């Protein structure tokens, strides 16, 4: 593994160098001003003028938008009667150009791996995964809303990243973790890090909070139906307003809905983010809704993250980024839900 030391200027030059002939995205600095058509809310293209400094904690919106875009075109078709292909579903041209995401945190990088469990066989996710390069910034400290360690990650973690950048004193240490990362760093002359710097980083990593799977193990051992019937859901469901703020900003919420859109005879079938908080999510055509009550939907989201997903894939569907904690209009805090669940015998 190659390790380099960069100054702020060198870091900015490197990233701007990449952006000459590739799409390079970073978390929007402040409130997003202008948007490229390809920019999702909360992200912007790297521009020459803004130095790459990041506030503590994860970006406003998660990295999932690059792998699981909102929306994704699944098929295209024509409805023109004169066209012999009328109604024939065609696969859209697959995007292959590289996209480089700079400035994501270890929690988001880990979310990409977690989402890959259900999306293992999903053609769109896999294509996006293959063309996305992730250049992450490790966290020197955890925010009050961060709990990545409790969910099996760590603030200094590198899982899922191609290049991990850590701020050490005034400069940056870049660890190149994959062949793609090597390609990117080979384009410019970089100063290798000193052994002492590499050791210092290793020492810091050793002393940072480590991945803890204790809660996962306890909850895995609990009876599903007992957790499902726990009294806590009633209280939680009563205050929840069933919006999708938590779901949409969550890096590991991956539900989608599928819909057709037709404009002047040209159609496309798209998938777009859905939320199990919405009544429409589970509504049958008959009018029957298996999760017709607010409480049932709130419960489903947390049970999915903390019990159903672990049962299927072995891990929590949560990376502890704390976005839902910050964004919830009614302060539903997944950490409190977790401790309430752990108390259910």
């Amino acid at each position, binding site marked *: 593994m190659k390790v380099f030391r960069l100054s702020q200027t060198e870091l900015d030059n490197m990233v701007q160098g990449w952006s000459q002939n590739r799409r390079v995205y970073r978390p929007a600095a*402040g*409130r*997003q*001003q*202008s*948007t490229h058509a390809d920019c*999702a*809310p*909360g992200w912007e293209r790297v521009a020459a003028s803004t130095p790459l400094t990041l*506030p*503590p*904690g994860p970006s*406003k*919106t998660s990295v999932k938008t690059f792998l699981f875009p*909102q*929306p994704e075109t699944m098929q295209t078709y024509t409805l023109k009667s004169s066209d012999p292909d009328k109604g024939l579903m065609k696969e859209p041209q697959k995007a292959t150009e590289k996209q480089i995401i700079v400035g994501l945190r270890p929690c988001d990088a880990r979310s990409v791996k977690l989402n890959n469990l259900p999306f293992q066989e999903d053609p769109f996710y896999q294509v996006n995964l293959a063309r996305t390069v992730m250049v992450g910034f490790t966290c020197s400290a955890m*925010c*009050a*809303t961060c709990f990545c360690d409790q969910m099996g990650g760590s603030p200094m973690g590198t899982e899922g990243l191609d290049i991990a950048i850590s701020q050490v004193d005034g400069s940056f240490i870049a660890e190149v973790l994959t062949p793609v990362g090597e390609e990117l760093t080979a384009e410019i002359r970089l100063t290798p890090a000193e052994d002492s710097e590499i050791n210092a980083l290793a020492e810091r990593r050793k002393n940072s909070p480590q991945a803890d799977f204790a809660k996962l193990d306890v909850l895995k051992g609990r009876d599903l139906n007992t957790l499902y019937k726990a009294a806590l859901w009633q209280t939680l469901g*009563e*205050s929840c*307003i*069933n*919006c*999708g*703020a938590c*779901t*949409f*900003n969550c890096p590991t919420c991956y539900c989608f*809905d599928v*819909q057709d*859109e037709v404009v002047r005879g040209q159609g496309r079938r*798209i998938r*777009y983010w859905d*939320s199990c908080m*919405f*009544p*429409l999510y589970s509504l049958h055509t008959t009018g029957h809704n298996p999760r017709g009550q*607010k409480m049932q939907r709130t419960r489903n989201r947390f049970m999915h993250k903390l019990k159903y997903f672990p049962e299927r894939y072995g891990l929590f569907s949560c990376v502890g980024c704390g976005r839902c*904690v*910050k*964004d919830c*209009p*009614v*302060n*539903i*805090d997944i*950490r*409190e839900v977790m401790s309430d669940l752990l108390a259910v015998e």
Partner: protein
Amino acid sequence: MPTINEKLTEEIRTQAKALLADGTVAAVIGYSRGSLPMTVKPTVVRASEDCGKLVWNSFCVLNLANYLPEVLKSVEPPRGPRDPKPEGPLAKVAVLATGCWSRNIVVQTQEHQVDRDRVVVLGVASRGMVSRRKVEEQFAGREILAVEEFDHDLVIKGADFEEKINRWSVVRDNCQTCTRPDPVLVDVRIGEPASERKNPNPFQQVDKIEEKSSDERWAWFTSEFSTCIRCYACRNACPLCYCPTCFVDDAKPQWVGKSLDAVDTGLFHLLRAYHCAGRCTDCGACESVCPMGINMRMLTKKLNKDVLNLYGMEAGMQPASPLPLTTYATDDPQKFIVTEAKAVKEGE
């Protein structure tokens, strides 16, 4: 010395406890402490011994009227969709209400969503709620770990800083322009009544946008709503939004596309705002809950201005008359259909 909000908190707890203890109400809708600085949890208290968790502070930004219809239903004896309404009076619910929230209860009563006789309004004058976003923007890049509230100041604390800021400077825009902080309905008074605030032009923020050229206005609109993620927090936090199926969810016919297309997003916000015309009390909940910091309140505020200018009405202030857009009179202004700007200028 206890602060104003500490005193109000104590009073709320005492009143809620009494109402639950003597069986006047079956539930009290209030707030309890949040897990983060500047947050509170909307809470339904059903037992008098739980009233100790109720709090009141400057961060109570969600409109509690939003919960009223559902909590009222929850205290009714369970019945099937076709079962008749049970005989005799139904249990009551107490709810905390400031000026704007109480006006929403009036609107809910006018729209038959809430039975006024079953509601005990714990009226509390609002001192203006603080915008968490404004505080966070002032401390951008620094993590706020605790906020201590005093009557006129907030003390913001982080790992390596502690700063005092003026409370009013970070009060939400809607509260800063509000003229009616005192509840219009009061069954149980909490604290002291507040007098009407003087504000020569409560629509100043709207005027600023109206003064722009149409290109500039379009630029403002597209930029303002470009970061919308369609989470519908604004809609769900609004006590006016209670349709069983929202127009954005309707499939037959489908009115609005579901992706992040700017036209669809814009349409959602415009239609949502128009559905609130003549009913919105400018409580600011929509804007406060938006995870992306979009000022969608400007749309409803503009419609509030239009309704006031055209019909001389403010939502929740005339409980006896029908809502302006659910009725008509032969002398209703109509020039606005063609040339609104001109008509308004002429003082129509």
